[in-house]
């Protein structure tokens, strides 16, 4: 493979591959239907049955 071929591939396939990857990840993260699950996950570590005894006093 020559340098020019590699640059051509990077500028075509590489670019679209990265963009497609970004779109897929953004969709997985931001689909409205997945919102509730993520919010639940974010709170899962704070549920009273896992909060540490040594938590901050406020």
């Amino acid at each position, binding site marked *: 493979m020559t*340098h020019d071929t590699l*640059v051509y591939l*990077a500028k075509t396939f590489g670019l679209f591959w*990265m963009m497609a*990857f970004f779109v897929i*990840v*953004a969709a*997985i*993260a*931001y689909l409205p239907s997945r*919102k509730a*699950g*993520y*919010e*639940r*996950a*974010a*709170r*899962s*570590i*704070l549920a*009273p*049955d*896992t*909060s*540490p*005894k*040594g*938590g*901050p*006093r*406020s």
Partner: protein
Amino acid sequence: MIASLSIAQRRNGLAFALCLALLGLLMAAAAQHGPMVVHGAMALVLGIALTGALARAVYDPPPEAARASFYYDDPTRFGIAMTLIWAVVAMGVGVWVAALLYWPEATPAVPWTSFGRLRPVHTTGVIFGFGGNALIATSFYVLQRTSRARLADELSPWIVLLGFNLFCLWAVTGYLMGITQSKEYAEAEWYADLWLVVIWVVYFVLYIRTLARRAEPHIYVANWYYLAFILVVAILHIINNLALPVSFAGAKSVTIWSGVQDAMVQWWYGHNAVAFFLTAGFLGMLYYFLPVRSGRPIWSYRLSILSFWGITFFYIWVGSHHLHYTALPYWVQTLGMTFSIMLLVPSWASAGNAIATLNGAWHKVRDDATLRFMFVAAVFYGLSTFEGSFLAIRPVNSLSHYTDWTVGHVHSGTLGWVAMIVFGAIYTLVPQLSGRDQMAWPRAIEWHFWLAVTGTLVYVVSMWNAGITQGLMWRSYGPSGTLTYSFLQSLQAMAPYYLLRTIGGGMFLAGTLLCALNCSATARAATGEVAASDRPLLPMPVE
């Protein structure tokens, strides 16, 4: 430790300990002389000690069946103790070599005390000894809490911790005896590298098996980061350390990579050691301990997913920015530079996410030094990733490379980000693991915090000044086109900065010492109580 193992695990452990002793004996016998004998003897002694302890306990009563309804935290306690021991030793060596740069005549006339041998003891001791033990210890803790499941078995965490610490010990004692692969952050010789691969596979398998037992449907994002750390470090370690031993009976080996390929593989490894050892795993720590300590869920869980994939996919390309203006093809340098700049987006997304999480809890940040450690860690994470992207730009790099600016940048990451988040995690964990409401000496946390922050700032600011001064002196030309300053003059100009650096490092070390003493006092005052809420959700039979 042994009392918590089942009878079958004690027998298996006994077999492993015997194998370790035999391996040590074989290494020592095959090598006959040189550092490999010492390393073989170390493995032999550890193997015999473990064999003795396990053999005595084989017929002791088995552990209570009720243990399955608790998390298994003994490995985490041991891991934190090792974290603090390595921290004190390796940061102590760091301060000593910093002092040697200011007082080079203080080097004793003994080979093992030379700067070249002590410097990798500092870097390996801090990165692997301090950082690695902290990652392993907290990963076991976080994995169990976020999965609401007990570790999959009781034996493999000990194999991981003892095996990993044997690797660290082999590495640093090897440097003192004068053996090195001459690869930055991968100086340990071939047999130590092979040993680490075995340990790492056990670690990965344990992590996956425990995740498979989880009682939570969703795998919390901290686990993604810990897993990225485990998986990618294995890949990096194996590829960078591919080497042919000159003899199986000696420590010397020759890397299979040559010339500029070797340089590229080394810095692909080197920068991803920063990415996946010193960033991904510690982000896992941040995403668990910061929400738990502040009592607030992460500001945007979805952003944490987006930045996870951004960080994993961008970081892997950036290593070539260490090789600007070298024999490496120009386009590879440009590629590394471009990805380094893009990397700022997911990095700042993570730092911003952490800081936004604290919105509404600023009174806690003010009152609670532990949470303040984590806040400062997030700020320094943001600062040092910005600086990293900036330094990767080719013309900026022409000023900064080979100067102490790089050293300052690394320490703003390791002291300001990595160590601060570790201390935040330790001060959250240790009281809980001791069944107490708080550390034995709460005031000492405040002292530690201010020593650490001041020490970091003194260190980093003095190195910025040192680096920019060096860079500018090296590129000053007189009217006739000759260099204005000799290299020696640029070195003499460093004296005040090197002194300040030693003082800053000393302050940071003092804080670490305080932390170790505080943790030891807290552990000695442990009540042994476990909060009724801190239990696995579904007790499962132990394998």
